[in-house]
C-alpha cells in the first residue's frame, strides 16, 4: 500500500514536472532581464577591478533570463508548439554536446595559441555550454515558428 502511494505520488509529480511552464508574460520579463544583465556585463568590462562575485551573479542571471524565455508558454500553446519546442530542445542538446566536446576546447586552444599562453586550456565551462544550449534552443524554436507561419 505504501509503495503504491509512493509510486502514485512520484507519477503525479513527474506529470506535473513534464507540464511545467511559465506564463507567456515571463518571456518578456526574461528578455528584459537578459538585456539588462548583458548591458551590466559589458559595463563591468570598463571597470578596472572586475568584481568576481558580481560578474558571477550577472552571468548566472543571464542564464535565468534565457531559461525564463525558454520555458514560458506561447500566446496559444497548442500541440504543434509543443512539438516544435521538443524538436528545438533535441537540436540544442545535440549541438550542446558537440560544442562541449569538440568546438569549445578547440576554440579555447586556438585562443590560447593566439594569446601565446604558456599553459594551454582544453577545459569547457559549464556556463558557456548552458548558455550555448539555451541560445540554440531559443534560436531554433523561433526559427521553426517563423517557418510555420
Amino acid at each position: 500500500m505504501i509503495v503504491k502511494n509512493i509510486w502514485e505520488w512520484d507519477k503525479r509529480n513527474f506529470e506535473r514536472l513534464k507540464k511545467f511552464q511559465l506564463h507567456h508574460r515571463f518571456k518578456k520579463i526574461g528578455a528584459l532581464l537578459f538585456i539588462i544583465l548583458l548591458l551590466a556585463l559589458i559595463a563591468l568590462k570598463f571597470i578596472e577591478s572586475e568584481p568576481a562575485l558580481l560578474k558571477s551573479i550577472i552571468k548566472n542571471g543571464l542564464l535565468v533570463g534565457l531559461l525564463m524565455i525558454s520555458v514560458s508558454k506561447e500566446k496559444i500553446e497548442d500541440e504543434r508548439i509543443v512539438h516544435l519546442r521538443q524538436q528545438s530542445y533535441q537540436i540544442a542538446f545535440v549541438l550542446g554536446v558537440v560544442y562541449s566536446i569538440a568546438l569549445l576546447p578547440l576554440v579555447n586552444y586556438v585562443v590560447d595559441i593566439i594569446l601565446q599562453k604558456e599553459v594551454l586550456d582544453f577545459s569547457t565551462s559549464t556556463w558557456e555550454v548552458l548558455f550555448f544550449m539555451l541560445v540554440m534552443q531559443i534560436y531554433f524554436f523561433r526559427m521553426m515558428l517563423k517557418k510555420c507561419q
Partner: protein
Amino acid sequence: MKNTLKVERAILNLTQDELAQKIGVSRQTINSIETNRYVPSTVLALKLSKLFNKPVNQFFTLEDNE
C-alpha cells in the same frame, strides 16, 4: 500524409482562424496542417472529424509511399 482540410473548411464556410478557435489551436497550426507541414495528433484529428461530421480517413489519407 495528404489532407483535404481546406476543402472541408470551405464547405463549412470557415476561415482558418474560425476553425482554429473551434478546436482550440492557433491559426498557424491549421495553416501548417493544410500545407502538409504538420501532421496532427489523433486527438486533434478526432476533433476535426467531429466538427466536419466525417470519419478521419475521409479527409486524411496516406500517400502511396507511406
